[in-house]
C-alpha cells in the first residue's frame, strides 16, 4: 500500500534516497488525506541545513496546519517551486509531483526510519 522503495517517519514524511548521497522528501498519502486540500507549503531556501527530526517547513490545508520534520540530517539542495502555484500536487501525487525538498544527506541515514511494512503497521494502528 505504501511504496516499497521509500523510507518513512512516524510523522508521515517519506524519504527517497537516490543512491548518490541525495534524497527527496515529501509527505505520505496518509498525511495528505488527513490534511485535506493543501493550500500552501512553506519550504526553506536551498542551503538550509537541518538535523534529524527538525522542523523544516509547514503544510497548510483549508482547515489546519502541520509541521514538516526532516526525516534524516540533510542540507537542502532544491525546493519544489511548482508547489507555490500548485499546492494540490501534494494531495494528487504525494510521492511524485508532490515532492517537497531534495536534500544532500549530511550524516548516516537515521536508524529509526521505517520501511513500508512498518509504516503500514503504524498507520493501521493509528486509524483505529
Amino acid at each position, binding site marked *: 500500500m505504501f511504496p516499497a522503495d521509500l523510507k518513512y517517519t512516524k510523522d508521515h514524511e517519506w524519504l527517497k534516497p537516490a543512491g548518490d548521497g541525495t534524497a527527496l522528501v515529501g509527505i505520505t498519502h496518509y498525511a495528505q488525506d488527513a490534511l*485535506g*486540500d493543501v*493550500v*500552501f507549503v512553506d519550504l526553506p531556501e536551498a542551503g538550509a541545513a537541518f538535523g534529524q527530526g527538525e522542523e523544516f517547513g*509547514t503544510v497548510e490545508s*483549508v*482547515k489546519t496546519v502541520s509541521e514538516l520534520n526532516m526525516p534524516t540530517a540533510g542540507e537542502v539542495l532544491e525546493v519544489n517551486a511548482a508547489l507555490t502555484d500548485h499546492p494540490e500536487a501534494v*494531495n494528487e501525487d504525494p510521492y511524485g509531483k508532490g515532492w517537497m525538498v531534495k536534500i544532500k544527506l549530511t550524516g548516516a541515514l537515521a536508524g529509526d526510519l521505517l520501511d513500508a511494512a512498518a509504516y503500514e503497521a503504524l498507520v493501521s494502528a493509528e486509524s483505529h
Partner: protein
Amino acid sequence: MSTSATELMKTPLNAAHRALNAKMVDFGGWDMPVQYPAGILAEHEAVRTKAGLFDVSHMGEIRVKGPGALALVEHLTPNAVSKLALGQVHYTAFLYENGTFVDDLLVYREGEEEFLLVVNAGNSDKDFAWVQQQAKGFDCTVVNESPATGQIALQGPLAVGILQPLTKTPLDPIGYYFFTHGEVAGIKCLISRTGYTGEDGFELYCAAGDTERLWNAVLAAGKPAGLIPAGLGCRNTLRLECKMALYGHEIDDTIHALEAGLGWIVKLDKGDFIGREALLAAKAAPAPRKLVGFKTLEKRDIARDHMPVVQDGRQIGFVTSAAPSPTCGFNLGLAYVPTDLAKIGGRIQIEIRGRAVDAEIIPTPFYKRAK
C-alpha cells in the same frame, strides 16, 4: 487517543455519509462529515457555482405554542417578533441579562401563537433548559422537537431548479427568509428559503425518520446539474466569507450583541427583553472593541481561529475565525480589535505560531452573491 465513535451522537444520515465515504469528525459531540471525497475546496466551489447538500440534522428545534408564546419569544430575544408575518423567519439571539449570547437562532412564525426556534447543535440542551426556565409564568408550552426532526440544506444558485421537480409547491415565490409547508419527494417538509452559505437555497425540515429518503431524493435529482454532498469544512469557509457568526467564535457569553456587529437584530424600542438594560448602557458608552474583517498580506500567512492580535509583543485582541478563502483567493478572518484600530485600511498584527504577521482591515462581508 480519540473518542470512540459509539459515544458520539448521530444524525439520521450517519450511514448515508459513511456510504459516501465521508471523512467523519467529532463536531461538538456529533459524528459529522467534515468533507466527502471531493474535498473542501470542490464542495465550497460547488455551493458557489452550482449546489451543495448539507446534513444539518444536528441542529435543535424548540416549539413554543400558546396564548403566551409571542410574549415569551419577545421576552427571550432582542429582535421584533411581532413584526414577523405568518410564514416569515428572522435571525436573532438568546441573550443573558448582561447582553451577552446564550446562542444565536432563527425564529419561524408558524402561527399567531406558535413559533419554531432553530438553535445550534452544540447549544441545544442549554437552550431548551433556558427557554423552559424563562417560560415559567407564560401561558404556553415549550417542546424540544430536536430528536424527532431532521434537516438538510440545499444551497447554491441552482437550488430552485434542482428542487422544483420534487415538489408541487412553487419555490420561486418563496422570498428570502420566508417559509412554507409542503411535500418534497412525497415527504412532508417545512421548506425555508434560508441558509448559512450566502447563496440562494432551501433548508428542509422533516420527520427524523424521513431524512434519509429526502436526502437521497434531492441528491439524485440534483446530480445531473452538478449537486454534490457538502460537509462542515466548506460550511465554515462559506459562512466565513459572508461574515456570518458562529457561536463560540464571533459570539459567546463574553461578547455582547453590539460589539459583535449584530445591532441590526436588536430592537431596543420594541419593548422589554432579557439583556435590554445592558445593551442600552452599552450603546450609550464608547465601545472598547469591535469585530473587523482582515486579510493577511502574504500567501504563506494563514491566520487560524483564536490566534492573538498583538501590538509590541502584547495581546490586544483575538481572531475569532480565520481560513484561506477559496472564493476570495486570499487568507482572511474576523477579529476583535480595540475600537481605535478598527479602521478600514488599518493594519493589525496577528501572532501566527510565534511570528507577528501583518494584516490589513478590509470591508465585510468578504463575499456577496450577485443579485
